Every structure is written in C-alpha cells, then in structure tokens.
C-alpha cells in the first residue's frame, strides 16, 4: 500500500500552453510529480520556469491544457473547493512576499487564524514552532520583514508556507541571492523538513549545488516543453547542447565534484 501511495501523482500537467501576446512560453507541456519526491525544474532564462510554477498553483490560467493537483483541476473547481485544495499547498515566492506591515510571527500566524480558525494565542504558539522549524532565532518573531536579511526572509517565508502543514511545497528560486553558506544551510533545511513532514517539493532553481544536494528528479525546460524528466545522472547524460553546457560547463563540473566529495 505504501508503494502505491508513493507512486501517486500529486501534480499532473497535461498539454499546457501558455502565451503572452504573440510570445508562446509553453506549448504542449506535460509534467507529473509523484508524492514524496523533490522535483527540480531547470532551464535557461525565459524558458518559463516561474510561469510553469504559477500555472500549477493556479495563479496563471493556461491558454490550453489542464493542471491537476491531487487529481483535481484547480481552474474547474468552485471557489470553496479551490480554497480547500489551496490549503494543501505552500508556496515560497522568490522575494519571500512576506506582508511588510506584519511581523514575522503575525505573517506565519495569519493563515492559521484565517484558515484553521485558531484563537490568536494558539496560532502564535504554532507560529513560533514553525519559525523555529525554519531555523530562525526566536528573536526574529517580533521583527518586521524590512528588518530581516535576505536569508532570514527566505526562512520566514518558508515558515509561512509551512503554516498549514501542506502536502506540496513550491519553491521559486529558494537559494537565489543567498551566500553559499546560507544556501547550503537552506538546502539542508529543505531536506530535513521533507523527511520530517513528508513533503512533496516542487522546486525552480538555477543553483547547481541545490540540484545535486536535494533533487530526486530533474525536469529540464526547453523548446517550450519538458525536454527530459529523470534522475540527475540520466538527465546529465542526455544528448542536448544546452544540457551538456549546463551540467558539464565549468560551474556544473565544480558542483558535481563538490557533491561527490561531499557524499564520500
């Protein structure tokens, strides 16, 4: 039974077509994500990684094709059902998107108060736990987002994304703008949380180290479609000019060597 559960597709995108004016970003794109895996989306600038993420979480309606989250089409659901589904996903936006007028603790407590209908005191207790889980020091609770560093903003935003114990966590460039130490710590944090909370992680990234550290599978976006979607070794061995340049260019090789020495 656990085997069948593991193979369940929590995200199914089929025949996605996205276009802005005359510019077609995706055309006939298919992608599936299974429960419990960490899928990383890579691709050159402008290949529509973030657009794909926004399409899957329902912020962007595709011109054609369907997206199914937990087997349900988000765009076809009535509003109430849709909210119920949205509570099962957590999203970490690239810039954090913390509400700038609320403290970190209030940011995390907001979904708990609004959706779980907890009294403020209990929501504050749970918010403090999520903030600690995200690896922030306790004195960060009462700070405003403007008073936090880039890495702390990411962690606070992660705590908010985890507020309702989502099944799927969407991360848009989680390590962009972090220093290498902070980025590595963030990678480890994602791995730990995924083990502890049984998360499915959908990750958009440019960071090769992140790919080598946490991704189970990698989907490469190119030519408006998913070019290849497989384990790291298989993707790296694919015969494609962009993929070769990406994984076997100077930075790719460095990250691969680092990952190998780390595992040994």
């Amino acid at each position, binding site marked *: 039974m656990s085997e069948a559960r593991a193979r369940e597709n929590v995200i199914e995108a089929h025949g996605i077509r996205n276009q802005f004016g005359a510019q077609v970003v995706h055309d006939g794109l298919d992608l599936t994500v299974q429960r419990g895996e960490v899928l990383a989306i890579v691709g050159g600038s402008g290949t529509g990684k973030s657009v794909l993420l926004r399409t899957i979480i329902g912020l962007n309606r595709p011109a054609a094709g369907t997206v199914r989250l937990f087997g349900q089409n988000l765009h076809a659901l009535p509003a109430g059902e849709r909210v119920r589904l949205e509570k099962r996903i957590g999203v970490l936006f690239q810039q954090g998107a913390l509400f700038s007028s609320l403290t970190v603790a209030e940011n995390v407590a907001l979904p708990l108060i609004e959706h779980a*209908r907890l009294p403020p005191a209990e929501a504050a207790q749970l918010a403090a*736990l999520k903030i*600690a*889980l995200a690896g922030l020091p306790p*004195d960060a609770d009462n700070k405003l987002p403007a008073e936090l560093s880039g890495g702390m903003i990411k962690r606070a935003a992660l705590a908010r994304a985890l507020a309702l*114990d989502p099944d799927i966590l969407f991360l848009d460039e989680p390590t962009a703008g972090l220093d290498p130490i902070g980025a590595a710590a963030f990678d480890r944090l994602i791995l730990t949380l995924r083990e*502890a909370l*049984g998360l499915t992680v959908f990750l958009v990234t440019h960071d090769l180290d992140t790919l080598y550290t946490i991704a189970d599978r990698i989907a490469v976006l190119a030519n408006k479609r998913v070019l290849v979607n497989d384990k790291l070794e298989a993707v790296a061995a694919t015969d494609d000019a962009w993929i070769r340049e990406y994984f076997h260019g100077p930075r790719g090789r460095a990250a691969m060597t680092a990952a190998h020495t780390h595992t040994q």
Partner: protein
Amino acid sequence: MPAAMNASATAGNLELHHAESGYRLCVSGQWTLPHYHGLAARVADLRTQNKTADAHLDLSALTALDTAGARLLCELVGIERLKRQLVDVRLAPGQRELLEAVAAALASPGAPPAKRYRFGDVLAHIGRASIAFRNHAIALLGFIGFIIDGLARTIWRPRRWRVTATVASLEHSGFDAVPIVALLTFLVGAVVAFLGATVLADFGATIYTVSLVSYSFLREFGVLLAAILVAGRTASAFAAQIGSMRINEEVDAIRVLGLNPMELLVLPRVLAMMLALPILAFIAMACGIAGGITVCALKLDIPPGMFLSMLANDIGPRHFFIGISKAPIFAFLIAAIGCLEGFRVSGSAQSVGEHTTSAVVQSIFTVIVVDAIAAMFCMEMGW
C-alpha cells in the same frame, strides 16, 4: 482495513487510564491542525491535574500527526521525556522524524514576549514625536541650505543647467495642473461671492462683494489654493519619484557615477516649481475673480464691466503683488519638502507610501503656517 479507515476519520483524543503500573496516556485518532483547538484544551486540562508527569505515553492508536499535533505531544509530556519515550514507541513511518524535528525546534529558547503598551508609553511617544519633529525641522532647514548652495553653484554655469528635466517637470507640475486649479478656484470664487452677497445684503452693501472677492483672491486665496493643490499633486509626485529611485538604488548609482543627485534630481524640480506656481497662482486669481464676476452678474445685478472698473479703481495692484510674491516661496518649500521626503525613503515599498503621505501633509502644513505669518506681517506693516 475498514476499521483503520474508520479510525482515521475520527478526531484526535486523549485519555488518561489508571493501570496497576501507573497512569497511562492514551493518544488516539487524528492529531492534526483541524482538531488543534480541542486537543489543546484537553492537554491543558490534564496538565493542570498534574498526572502527566510520570504517565506512560501510548501512541498505538494514533492515526495521523502533523506539526500542530506534534507540538501538543511535546507540551503534554515535555520535550526531554518525549525524546526518551520515542525510543521504545511504535510509530508510523515519518512520524518519528516529525516528532524529533518538532522537539528539536521547541527545545530552542522561546521568543522574548512582545512588548505590551502601558500608560507611560503615551508620554514616551509624545517625547519621541517632539524630538522627531525638531530633528525633522533641522533636516529640512539643512536641505534648504543644500538647495540654495546647489543653486548658487550652478547658476553661473549654464552648461550644467538641466533644461530638459526642468521643462519636463514644469509641464507635469505646472501645465498639467492648470485645469484643476482653474476649475476649483472658479468655484471657490463663486462661493465667496455668494457668502458676501448673503451677509452684505442685510446692510444694503452688496456692492462690496466686489471688494471681498477681489481682496481675498488677490491677497490670499489665489496663491493659497494653488499652493495647496500643487502640494497635494506635485509634492507627492516628487516624493514618490525620488523614493522609488532610492529603493531601486538609482540615487546611489548617480552618486557612484560621480554625478550630483542634488543637481540632477532636486534643482530641476525646485526651479520648475518656482516657475509653475506663480503662473498657477495668477490663473487661480483670475479664475476666482471670474467666479465672483459670474455670481455678481447673475445674482446681484452688478454687470461685469462695473466689477472690472471697481477692481481697477478701488483695489490697487499692491494686493496682487503681495499675493503673487508669496508664490515662489511656497513653491520652494513644497518642492524642498517633496524631494527631501523622497530621499528619506528606505527599504520597502511601504516606506514610499509613508513618505509620500508625509510630504503632502508637511507641505500643506508649512504653506498654511507661512501664509499665516505673512498675513500678520503684512497687517502690521500696513501693506
């Protein structure tokens, strides 16, 4: 299997059993966020009974657990004991890791409590606000000094005049403001004439409505209304423009490129404003008087020709000069406050909003205060 399905649908529960070996805490059902409120009350209840301290934890009937439930379990038996008991407890896969992660997170010291408001804080707030006001006034005076310094440095070097920026700013803050200034002052002129007609009719002195409208618009209302409208329209625009440049680090880029933000950003705006506001004030006076003429002609049977001849003969140009001479001063203050607030923006988009609002409030405040001082001065001087 059906039994398990049944159990998984039940809410979380917590029972205290008395066995021969001691107390036993039976945890069952779903310990998840939707049931958090009820479970938290139950946990608090049992903890006050003081029987949880040495009770044995039985997690065999637990069907679902998330971070919220894990937090309550930690609270129920304490982090250290939970860690000890986890060793010999049978758990579904993943739940052990979850409990360990939550226990580790809770073991870190709690946040210092947020400060609560007390009565004394009001006094402290007043004190802080007073000091902030003083610092602000000093900063504004300093900034005005910088502007004058910048003007003095560039005025002799026409090559460094930013003509394009000045003209663009003139169009935006002057020309584009003409319709709204004209319309509003026309209406206010009409209202003043109505008021005058109503009050003066009791004395049979409706003819003095002409003087009332002319005096008030030439000396005060024309320039004041124009200045207030411009303060709302343009001071906010200046603050927002420079503020978003600050956020975008454009101002820093200007500095690093060896250019002077004062010269590039502030002087063109100040100069444009000092040209625009006298023109707008003149338009405001004309339109206000036109509003008065309209009401006089329609309601009081004072023909426009008579109005204008009274204006020319009885009311000297002195009043016009007093009014219009205030316009460049107001313009300078409004532009200085708008630009200064723009430079004070820091950090977030919210800060732009705050400083834009502050620019409008301050410039209107300053304009009215300076106008009041000027009115008293002129009265004492007998002008």
